[in-house]
């Protein structure tokens, strides 16, 4: 499953997409993100499923701002979550 967390508002599209088929629940993104954007939750979409990564409720409505410091306007863009995820389960839409 591809889970889109975030929003589209007047200023643009801001989604973090987690591919839960790739996510193995290793928790690396949770620890890597300096702003605590991720959490591990029980897979509620498949009752046989285990843990999966998700964007916390708190950050979903302000993800553009939460991720801002990792996305400087110039210079190198280092998305810690994406770098930490060996399964390549995380993408950002912006």
């Amino acid at each position, binding site marked *: *499953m*591809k*889970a*889109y967390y*975030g*929003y*589209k*508002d*007047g*200023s643009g599209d801001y*989604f973090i997409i987690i591919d839960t088929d790739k996510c193995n629940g290793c928790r690396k993104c949770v620890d890597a993100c300096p702003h605590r954007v991720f959490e591990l939750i029980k897979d*509620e*979409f*498949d*009752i046989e499923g285990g843990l999966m990564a998700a964007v916390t409720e708190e950050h*979903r*409505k*302000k993800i553009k701002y939460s991720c801002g410091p990792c996305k400087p306007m110039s210079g190198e863009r280092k998305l810690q979550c994406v770098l930490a995820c060996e399964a390549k389960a995380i993408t950002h*839409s912006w």
Partner: protein
Amino acid sequence: MSEKSKEFWRWREYRHTMPNMDWHDAKMVTAGVDIGSVGSKAAVMLDGELYTYAAMRTGGVSEETAVKAMNWAIEETGLKTEDIHYVVGTGYGRVNVPFAKRTITEIACHARGAHYIYGPTVRTVLDIGGQDCKAIRCDEKGKVMSFLMNDKCAAGTGRGLEVFADLIRTPIEELGKTSLSVQDEPQPVSNTCVIFAKAESVALLRQGWPKEKVSAAYHLAMVNRIIDLLTKVGIEKDFVVTGGVAKNTGIVSRLERNLKLKPLEPKLDPILAGAIGSALFAKALYEKEIGLR
């Protein structure tokens, strides 16, 4: 068969029990309770078939609403809450369902429920409520393949339409119709933001545009935005539209035209999708619990 309903402003409270079904014959009695921000629904299923349900407005205390909705659903059936093998709570108030054994996110329940209501050919579900917009793509089993929920921004939700209805002083129920009375579709309003789109609409009205034309431009902008969100999760037929905005013909007919897809007609009130879906999850969880799975 017993049906009671009280009319409320824009939101009908009602209950219904399926005739010719008896819970005494059922092996598994499961239920789902969906506590939304506006309405709360409870559904009871017998071996995975819908038996009885109720929909009512959410009150100040979610726990009380959950109990009330459930009691209303099983009223006159002789069924007691204790007789139900497994209850799942969903919706934004899902943690406040006192008798639920588990909670499950509304996205999963909504997809499962839509699958039950519209049949297994459903692949894309669009749900536009008063305060959010959900786009879900699911497989033939009703399992979610991808989803997106936007509850940050009022644009593209019922709230965005209310603001506009207020502006042109048209009852919300008739808003969609006003937008369909223009001959040629105008350019959409260029601002997405409800606040700025409203200001833009005021400017168009001052320029002398009739309100129907401004309404068409406003609806079209909203439809473009929705299509954009749908495209992200992927649009596959069959396509269904649920939620309060499904009643706005100005939105639905434009979606139909621009997507070249005709939404399926529901066999049951789609407002029940979340409750039905959670009752189905309850069945699966109960089967797992007793070792049937």
